[in-house]
């Protein structure tokens, strides 16, 4: 045993990996750290701009209320709330008044239900990804394929949800330089940060598909280890981690 092991005193003297990880995995960690800085700067910017505006006045609509009929004579939901001063250029809008839509429930007030669903989709696809990693550690090729397919489905489901949310938001009049809900920064930052995150999800899905094809062709079986799954898994979990903070900042704060 003495010939094959090197003591910890020699960590940085060469001939071994100082962190006991492969260079690829270390580089993935360092890349994720730099990517985390990028997202942090966007979210710090969001938080700072958000709180340089006053908060919206207290206003409540009961959940499951049919707001489409409730505000019909005032010309619509947005028009009625603008008239009452709930949506105004002078203060930030309340996210539960803006993001209260759900597919197939037109006009029903369901604040934050849809983004919670998106959060659960992403958390669940993270679980299937980590199950694929676990299967890879056991060199179980069939299971890796199965869980990678689940993860890719989760990724596409999330992207579909985001496309629906953007479409809804754009239909209501949100653009990069203005929106009917409040200061122009609101929609501009929303498109910038969720777009940046959505692009990361898209890249993650592409990586996952590449990994799935490689696995089905037996590349990792030939190589003798499934570390590629772990490295892509790190990226996919990072995307989930960023969504935790996008969710916190855009919909809760």
């Amino acid at each position, binding site marked *: 045993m003495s010939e*094959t*092991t*090197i*003591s*910890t005193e020699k960590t940085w003297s060469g*001939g*071994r*990996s*100082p*962190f*006991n*990880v*492969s*260079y690829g995995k*270390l580089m993935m*960690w*360092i890349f994720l*750290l730099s990517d*985390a*800085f990028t997202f*942090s700067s966007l979210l*710090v910017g969001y*938080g*700072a701009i*958000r*709180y*340089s*505006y*006053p*908060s919206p006045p207290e206003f409540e609509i009961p959940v499951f209320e049919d707001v489409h009929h409730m505000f019909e004579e005032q010309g619509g939901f947005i028009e009625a709330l603008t008239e009452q001063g709930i949506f105004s250029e002078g203060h930030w809008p*309340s996210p*539960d008044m803006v993001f209260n839509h759900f597919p197939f429930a037109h006009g029903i007030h369901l604040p*934050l239900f849809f983004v*919670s669903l998106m959060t*659960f989709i992403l*958390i*669940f696809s993270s*679980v299937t990804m*980590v199950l694929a*990693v*676990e299967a*890879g*550690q*056991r*060199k179980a090729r069939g299971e890796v394929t199965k869980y990678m397919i689940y993860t890719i489905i989760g990724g596409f489901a999330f992207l579909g949800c985001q496309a629906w949310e953007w479409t809804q938001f754009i239909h209501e009049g949100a653009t990069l330089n203005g929106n009917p809900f409040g200061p122009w920064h609101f929609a501009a930052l929303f498109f910038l940060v969720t777009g940046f995150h959505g692009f990361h999800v898209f890249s993650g899905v592409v990586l996952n598909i590449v990994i799935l094809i490689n696995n089905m062709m037996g590349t990792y079986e030939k190589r003798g*280890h*499934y*570390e590629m799954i*772990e490295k892509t*898994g*790190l990226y996919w*979990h*990072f995307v*989930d*981690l960023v969504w*935790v*903070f996008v969710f*916190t900042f855009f919909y*809760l*704060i």
Partner: protein
Amino acid sequence: MGHNQINYDNYDPTTWVPEAENHGTKALWKTFIILSVITVLDIILYFTIDPGMPRNITFIILGVVKAAFIVYVFMHMTYEKGSLKNTIILPMIFVIYLIMLMLIEADFWNYLNYLLD
């Protein structure tokens, strides 16, 4: 899983990969349940606590707790060496500190706007 037992015979940094360790799936499902519960808790707090800085700081702390579970369990950070943990985690602690400082600073900008109007 002592780090001294790792085999460095014929060490080639471009291809060397440590032997994969399997830690089972129990912790993963437990983490999934914790993450779901915290997300539901977020929504409940959103509708029960009045808006303001204390609520925001609660949400950021809950976000950091969720992030910690993702990094330590899903990304297997628990099983990495201490030096790698520090390389990744320490910079992020400073970033979280910056987020809190900027929220408080922006609240002051808002106050300045109010004074100047």
